[in-house]
């Protein structure tokens, strides 16, 4: 019964939100790109870049918010590169995205190694501290579980609301969704689908970088290579799971984080009876399962991965 008791601990639920935060940012970012019709497999590299840049900004004396801002800007810049290659040039979104991931992550490691000498343990910064929301955080159990998170977690939740509102209720959102469904129709409306796609990719990539930045400024307090650990790819799977809807993306990220937080704690309960690697596999297996279950019902943006060239069908 110990295995079930875990669900009754506030620390589990508090960890769920913490683990979900980078996934929320990343999934939202990938979702915005795909809603405009472009798959962004640069996500894994952009998250790695965001993690390092934010950490480095703080380590060099900037404050934490400045770190997040610089990460978002750098993420946007790599998004712009992906956008220029895939939208006006119409290159393969798969291969370009992987290229961006390889480029962003190798550049990240290179710059990190160039700036700091090799040490046995990575240098640390003072990360974001939990922010107790006055009043709400005093509620027993729920206060500790949901209302004493770090500031970027609240920002991520706000970003979900904002993205959902933007996509569903504003002319800009309509234009983005239309570009993902039928760019020729956008052209006929007198809008420029190329610009809309570029803008969406830049904004989405900035969000991805924030997801990476959360890892170094809130989850951990240092940067180390391979720390993103496939979270970017999980986000790409979560977008399918969410049927390209921000609300469901939040749900997917939370569900995923719940399993992840639970398996971490279950490891301690069961101890060595089961190899720890099996627990670590759970999140990855789940994201494949989520893909399989949702792929049939998924409402894929009709023009996803179809390059748009004016006058070409």
């Amino acid at each position, binding site marked *: 019964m110990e295995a079930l008791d875990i669900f009754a601990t506030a620390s589990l639920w508090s960890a769920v939100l913490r683990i979900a935060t980078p996934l929320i940012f990343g999934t939202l970012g990938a979702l915005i790109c795909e809603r405009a019709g472009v798959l962004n497999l640069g996500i894994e590299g952009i998250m790695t870049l965001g993690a390092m840049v934010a950490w480095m900004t703080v380590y060099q004396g900037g404050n934490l918010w400045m770190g997040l801002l610089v990460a978002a800007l750098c993420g946007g810049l790599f998004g712009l590169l992906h956008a220029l290659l895939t939208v006006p040039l119409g290159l393969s979104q798969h291969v370009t995205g*992987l290229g961006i991931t*390889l480029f962003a992550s190798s550049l990240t490691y*290179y710059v990190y190694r*160039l700036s700091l000498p090799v040490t046995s343990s990575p240098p640390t910064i003072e990360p974001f501290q939990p922010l107790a929301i006055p009043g709400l955080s005093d509620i027993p159990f729920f206060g500790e579980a949901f209302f004493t998170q770090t500031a970027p977690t609240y920002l991520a939740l706000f970003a979900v609301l904002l993205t959902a509102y933007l996509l569903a209720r504003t002319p800009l959102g309509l234009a983005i969704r239309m570009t993902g469904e039928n760019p020729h129709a956008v052209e006929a409306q007198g809008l420029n689908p190329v610009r809309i796609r570029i803008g969406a990719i830049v904004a989405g990539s900035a969000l991805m970088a924030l997801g990476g930045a959360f890892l170094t400024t809130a989850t951990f307090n240092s940067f180390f290579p391979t720390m993103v650990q*496939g979270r970017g790819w999980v986000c790409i*799977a979560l977008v399918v799971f969410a049927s390209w809807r921000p609300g469901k993306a939040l749900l997917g990220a939370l569900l995923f984080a719940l399993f992840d937080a639970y398996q971490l704690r279950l490891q301690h309960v069961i101890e060595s009876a089961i190899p720890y*690697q099996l627990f670590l596999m759970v999140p*990855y297996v789940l994201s494949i399962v989520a*893909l*399989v279950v949702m792929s049939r019902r998924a409402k894929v943006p009709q023009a996803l991965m179809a390059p748009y060239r004016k006058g070409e069908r």
Partner: protein
Amino acid sequence: MRLERRTQSSLALLLAAPVIAIVIALALSGGLIALAGVNPLDAYAAMVKGAFGSRLSISETLTRTTPLILTGLAAAVAFRARLWNIGGEGQLYAGALVAAWLGHNMAAGLPTPLAIILIMLAGMLAGALLLLGPVLLRLRLGVDEVVTTLILNFIVLLFVSMMIEGPLKDPLAFGWPQSVPVDSDVMLPKLLSRSRLHIGLIIAILAAFVIWIVQSRTVFGMETKAAGLNTRAASFAGIKLGRTLLGVACISGGMAGLAGAIEVTGLKGYVTLDLSPGYGYSGIVVAMLAALHPVGVVITALFVAIVFVGADAMSRALGVPSFIADVIVSISLLTMLVSLLFTTYRVRR
């Protein structure tokens, strides 16, 4: 300004494209080397020396080329049919693990050449089976294979970690997570004495030529090309897309699995978690630089190996972080994509 499709692309343009791409990539990376306070020309000279300067360094470069040819072929074969196999890394480890297991247990009783051939085939089978899952998911349920193959890489690595800390752990490795060693009888013969170079290189080059012949001279090869160019037209022409893609998956996964089996039986003798420094991912770059041509893959694999071996030596000599190798290779991929585009399109006002 807009892009217009060229009616024909000249051979000179096709051959110049990769050269131009690599020159631009080297120029851009040169800027980053300068950031480290080192003259880029000195750095590149040190890299060439590190990759070719001595008998030892040449044999190291060729040793490093071997797995890159095979993972490059894995990507090239799949991408030609628009099968996005990004799982080369996982398939490599699957082949490696099977090779270590068989190589440790099977040596007794079988003649050496037969045992080696069996191990190679088993490695290929392991890689192919690992790719068949995602391909079947795509064909039956419409699940995008990019994400499934990518995520499988992480699952396979955890599985390998579980095996080499569990059932396949080497009890003599002082607690270090390392698989049981391959019997010395079934290790691949050396190609060059007093070096690490083994006959895996010959196997890899042969594989490239066989795949080239299959692609250009057989019905199956034509079908894979048709499937990649236009799925709908291919199915109207009576090509069974599912069967073609499954065949492609067997070759692609097989090549990556073979890379793993060869690394284990040719070089390391056992499996560890750092068996491959990302050969599966580098294979994608190798394939793209070769414009997916199997024989071109041999040449571009050599280029990528030169960058990696050269950068290691240059890093020791001049202190530029060796991550510069990955930077050069990844920028080359992006510049190659653009320059390939301009072999089929031109800019018009």
